[in-house]
């Protein structure tokens, strides 16, 4: 009796979640709540000195906003850094670089060690960009780090500044719903990201990023968590209209986006989605990896 009760419950609540979920995910660092208005302002472009340091920062900026085109060996999909870190990594509540850089080195449960800032960026390349991270001492990583360092000018180190990360959006009482999410997607997102999440290109380069499929973030990226995507969406989307979706709509549409296939988690354990789920996804926020949705196993990857 006890053994099949959870199954019944699961069936009864549909997409709502049955088990308590560990929400401390990606990083052990915490994000101040959204009502804490950001006080920190990164330096203006005009303040950049015209010397060797300024030149390196400019190179880092170029890589940050045009990553895919300038680092084709490191980026394996259609994403740029600036797709998830809006306004060139400057915008509060959009995981700004000035909120991240001064917090490293820091312990991350994701790889169970203390990570330098360069190692943190390598994670972005491996997962969010589904690529091959450049070496920590490569000129590109040095330039990207210099850009983040410059944006953090006069920020205190080791202080969780208001505006860092994406503020948490609590999961609504009734969970989330794919059908409602699909409707939100059609009405608010498809105009830019396409009916099938495919993004939009001009002259072969993505202008609006793909949200699922082979050119999107992979199953190991933080954005594959519904809670993380809901937070990003609520505070940043649609572009220019942040905060226009309700918490419920943000969760619904995040669930709709993240029920679609994307490149496989590069940490795939012995070729098994189930083993990978147990090792990396079972306690990683709210995600669908390795679960069945409408009878189909999620997390099979897009192949190739």
């Amino acid at each position, binding site marked *: 009796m006890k053994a099949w009760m959870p199954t019944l419950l699961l069936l009864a609540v549909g997409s709502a979640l049955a088990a308590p979920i560990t929400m401390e995910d990606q990083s052990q660092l915490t994000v101040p709540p959204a009502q804490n208005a950001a006080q920190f302002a990164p330096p203006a*472009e*005009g303040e*950049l000195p015209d010397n060797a340091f300024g030149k390196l*920062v*400019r190179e880092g*900026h*170029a*890589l940050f*906003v*045009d990553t895919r085109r*300038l680092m084709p060996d490191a980026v394996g999909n259609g994403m740029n850094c*600036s797709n998830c870190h*809006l*306004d*060139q990594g*400057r*915008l509060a509540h959009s995981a700004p670089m000035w909120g991240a850089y001064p917090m490293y080195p820091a312990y991350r449960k994701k790889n169970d060690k203390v990570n330098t800032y360069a190692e943190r960026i390598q994670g972005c390349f491996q997962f969010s960009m589904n690529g091959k991270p450049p070496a920590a001492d490569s000129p590109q990583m040095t330039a990207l780090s210099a850009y983040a360092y410059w944006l953090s000018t006069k920020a205190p180190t080791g202080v969780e500044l208001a505006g860092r990360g994406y503020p948490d959006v609590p999961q609504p009482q009734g969970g989330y719903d794919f059908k409602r999410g699909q409707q939100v997607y059609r*009405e*608010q997102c498809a*105009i*830019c990201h396409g009916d099938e999440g495919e993004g*939009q290109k*001009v*002259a072969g*380069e993505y*202008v*609006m990023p793909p949200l699922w499929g082979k050119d999107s973030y992979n199953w190991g990226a933080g954005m594959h968590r519904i809670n993380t995507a809901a937070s990003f969406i609520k505070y940043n989307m*649609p*572009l*220019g*209209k*942040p905060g226009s979706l309700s918490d419920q709509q943000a969760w619904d549409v995040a669930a709709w986006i993240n029920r679609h296939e994307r490149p496989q988690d590069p940490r795939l354990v012995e070729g098994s989605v189930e083993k990978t789920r147990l090792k990396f996804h079972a306690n990683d926020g709210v995600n669908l990896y390795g679960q069945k949705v409408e009878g189909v196993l999620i997390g099979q990857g897009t192949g190739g």
Partner: protein
Amino acid sequence: MTPLSRVVIGSALILAWPMAHAADGQKIFTQGGSNPAAMACLGCHGPDGKGIAAAGFPRLAGLPAGYLSKQLHDWRTGSRKQPVMEPLAKALTDDEIKAVSSYLASMPGDPAPTVRRQQIASDPTTRLALYGDWSRQIPGCVQCHGPGGSGVGEHFPPLAGQPASYLEAQLNGWRDGSRSNDPNQLMVGVAKAMTDDEVVAIAEFFANPASPEVKP
């Protein structure tokens, strides 16, 4: 045959006529539609469809067909206002709108200048065009309208190569509410957040490919 039935048959023939003949987009562009009130596009938009900058008549060549067709339908229903285009669009049939939109979309426009995003923009107009001003929830123009304002998909028309006076008039139309046919109201908020000076400067920025601020 009674006179009445002649009228009925005649009307039926007239109604059926446009259906029987696929509308010719090129012909509408050069000579106008079947209704004489649907004047030829080239009269105002130029023989190459690239507009007449001095008069503020916009470029149509190479604009997305879906966008053009939406504008013509919006003029018909009055959801976009313009004293010349409203009666003209009402004189076009559905088929003619479809045909002339795809013909215009197939006409070559001047390519957008290759303004890449990787430069740090220190002057305020380039900054607004490339990156926006997030303290006012203004995305960079090119984030939706594509690199250099080349246009993206069916909903985000090119800004590059449009006359400055046309771009300025549209931005001001959204600001004062006289234009409001943007999908999901994506443009109205942006335009309303802009200042008078920014409207002028941004219109110049995209109208003029030789702008000294545009360094690829």
